[in-house]
């Protein structure tokens, strides 16, 4: 078959973003993913409406959700693929090149869910989180998936006479590189003795042979090389891509390590590429399992089969304790999956700062197309991919990955509920200084600046001031309030305005809301079409600062906020009202939704809603508090507090499954608000 590479250098990476790689991000996977997306868009100097293609991983939210929550108007291409992220990159390159979309956002997020580490397994919160779309193999007697990596590692050692000390080279190299990368998840120095003393998990693989579980997300923006010239960042041209599977592909049926997807990938990559192995300046062999990195090095042609350990020793830089291939090419300069963090190979994507701009590469004079990178990774040995990237700039994505939320003592759930309704949080989980909240809000504000959203804080009466003070503190640092970004929500009812303080926007323009009567009428006219769940709303009401200042405008408690959330598990689960997973997940989602709401506006039917581009929406409904159930796992004890708990209810509305079709939305040309058209 003739070698073709029609998209060679025609498509570029123009923006990268990451949510940071940490053990405990204090945020949900959804939130992390959206953070990374926002930063990638921001990095490219684009706005959400510039994105017309979406490709996400099955680990995290679907493109529909990303679209709704990022406020992207519409896309002409979307896909959701299994990891590694380079599969997504390759799909996006080809979609852009084919003209089905112009600018694609590619994203991946992963969560340290129960089952990925011991500590996660013993954490009742994390136990509930799984990787979306990935069902762990329930069969203890199967080689499918991870056990086979260990078995083939064993074969590699046995066939070539190597030992664990040889596997250790990969882990030691990754850790040494992580020490040079301030954003790596684990950077403590690692010695061979440490490695050999490490607990065997799947023999012969020990804990340090397997990627380091993290909460993380990465995103990239991909567009045509032509368009890239006009954008904020110098383009990184994608020069050649390659994917491959070889039959038999099943882990325990693979013929041997010389007959895998890797061989297909590298053969085709070199054939399609003008870049040769000698041109490569940085190399990212996937090291989710240490032995895979050895295979990549061999299959890429740096040495023969079975020779990688010797090759690594020959190329070891004693000074830095890491590999420098031929004295100049770092290997997994970001720290690899083993130390930078296990993100199924997406690590190099968002790390041009540490990888493309690796010390050695930076030292060399730069000319276009001088530096290139081979980003090789796999989620499974038989099915692999590789990209050659032609990097025209050292500056791409030069912003360092930020550690978005400091490590606080509390976890995502506590943060979530602290914002959504503090009264339902067991006291022990409330962060007395609101530090978690501050970290969280900081992030929200960053995001709001990019997407011009407003921040909505819902607090129960007694704890409300704390939240507002926190906001103000954050604002002191950011000046966000001056931009009128805050929407404050306090409790209250028709007769007695909330005691919450009003945040007066400095430059924000306040909109007057409709009268309560108008709202009531609009609502009534609408109610018959809606599925109303739970009891009718009680005395809680929400008043909204900025747009609708506390004490000035009243809303009927039945008002709902359309918050741009594609209907999936959470919305439905919470309706079960006592379902354990439902309660926490739903609150987490509420928070996420609020984070990404573009701001509350009225639509022409008098409903208060976000300006977000909700395709299928979820209502956040002010309701009697029984909606959140008890938490049997013991993370948060709602028992005895059921009548005080969260004043929010997430009620699934027209999301299908309730006998109502999906609705469609359109943009109001005058106000910019979205109107909902109801299918008839």
């Amino acid at each position: 078959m003739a070698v073709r590479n029609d998209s060679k250098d025609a498509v570029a990476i123009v923006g990268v973003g990451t949510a940071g790689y940490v053990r405990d991000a204090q945020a949900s996977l959804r939130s992390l993913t959206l953070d990374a997306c926002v930063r990638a868009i921001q990095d490219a100097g684009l706005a959400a409406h510039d994105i017309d293609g979406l490709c996400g991983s099955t680990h995290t939210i679907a493109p529909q959700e990303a679209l709704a929550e990022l406020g992207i108007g519409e896309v002409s291409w979307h896909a959701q693929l299994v990891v590694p992220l380079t599969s997504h990159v390759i799909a996006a390159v080809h979609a852009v090149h084919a003209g089905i979309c112009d600018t694609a956002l590619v994203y991946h997020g992963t969560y340290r869910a129960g089952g990925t580490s011991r500590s996660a397994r013993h954490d009742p919160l994390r136990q509930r989180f799984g990787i979306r779309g990935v069902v762990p193999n329930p069969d203890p007697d199967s080689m499918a998936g991870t056990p086979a990596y260990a078995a083939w590692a064993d074969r590699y050692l046995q066939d070539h006479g190597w030992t664990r000390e040889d596997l250790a080279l990969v882990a030691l190299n990754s850790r040494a590189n992580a020490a040079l990368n301030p954003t790596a998840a684990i950077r403590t120095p690692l010695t061979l003795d440490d490695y050999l003393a490490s607990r065997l998990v799947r023999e012969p693989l020990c804990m340090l042979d397997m990627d380091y579980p993290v909460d993380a997300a990465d995103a990239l923006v991909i567009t045509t090389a032509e368009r890239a010239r006009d954008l904020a960042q110098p383009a990184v041209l994608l020069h050649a891509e390659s994917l491959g599977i070889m039959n038999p592909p099943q882990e325990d049926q693979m013929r041997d390590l010389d007959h895998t997807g890797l061989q297909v990938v590298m053969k085709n990559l070199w054939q399609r590429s003008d870049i040769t192995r000698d041109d490569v300046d940085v190399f990212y062999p996937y090291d989710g399992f240490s032995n895979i990195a050895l295979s990549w090095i061999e299959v890429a042609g740096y040495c023969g089969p079975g020779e990688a350990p010797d090759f690594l020793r020959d190329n070891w830089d004693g000074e830095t304790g890491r590999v420098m291939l031929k004295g100049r090419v770092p290997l997994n300069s970001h720290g690899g999956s083993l130390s930078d963090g296990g993100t199924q190979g997406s690590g190099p994507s968002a790390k041009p700062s540490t990888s493309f701009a690796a010390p050695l590469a930076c030292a060399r004079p730069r000319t276009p197309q001088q530096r290139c990178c081979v980003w090789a990774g796999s989620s499974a040995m038989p099915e692999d991919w590789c990209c050659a990237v032609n990097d025209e700039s050292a500056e791409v994505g030069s912003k360092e990955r930020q550690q978005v939320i400091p490590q606080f003592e509390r976890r995502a759930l506590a943060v979530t509920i602290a914002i959504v309704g503090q009264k339902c949080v067991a006291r022990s989980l409330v962060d007395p200084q609101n530090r978690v909240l501050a970290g969280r809000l900081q992030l929200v504000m960053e995001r709001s600046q990019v997407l011009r959203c407003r921040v909505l804080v819902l607090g129960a009466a007694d704890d409300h001031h704390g939240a507002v003070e926190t906001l103000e503190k954050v604002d002191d640092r950011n000046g966000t309030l001056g931009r009128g970004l805050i929407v404050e929500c306090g409790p209250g009812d028709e007769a007695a305005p909330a005691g919450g303080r009003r945040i007066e926007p400095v430059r924000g323009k306040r909109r007057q809301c409709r009268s309560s009567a108008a709202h009531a009428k609009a609502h009534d006219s609408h109610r018959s079409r809606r599925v109303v769940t739970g009891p009718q709303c009680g005395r809680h009401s929400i008043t909204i600062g900025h747009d609708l200042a506390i004490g000035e405008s009243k809303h009927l408690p039945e008002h709902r906020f359309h918050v741009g959330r594609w209907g999936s598990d959470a919305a439905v689960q919470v309706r079960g009202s006592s379902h354990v997973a439902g309660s926490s997940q739903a609150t987490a989602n509420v928070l996420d939704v609020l984070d990404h709401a573009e701001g509350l506006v009225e639509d022409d039917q008098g409903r208060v809603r976000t300006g977000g581009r909700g395709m299928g929406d979820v209502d956040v409904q002010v309701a009697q508090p029984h909606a959140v159930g008890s938490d049997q796992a013991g993370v948060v004890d709602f028992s005895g507090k059921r009548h005080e708990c969260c004043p929010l209810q997430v009620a699934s509305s027209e999301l299908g499954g309730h006998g109502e079709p999906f609705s469609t939305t359109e943009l109001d040309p005058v106000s910019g608000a979205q109107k909902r058209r109801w299918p008839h």
Partner: protein
Amino acid sequence: MISEMIGGRGTVELRTVLHVGPAAPGIDYEAGHTLVSIRLDEAPGVRLTAPMEAASGEIVDLGSRVEFRVVDRGGIPTPAARLLDRHD
């Protein structure tokens, strides 16, 4: 469809000892759960994966001769591989 009975003997080509995995009766991950993939004598293109009989973390040599049999593991009939003598 043609079915053919085969003897269930073969040679160990892959092995690992797992210390984590889905909980199941009769499996002690702390001691180690030994899995092997076997090339069957009578179906050389296929490997069959199974736990070692009475596995308790001991490793089995690559190239070992084994035979499949159904054993009672925690009250559940489970196909498992039993070590044979070299010449079998």
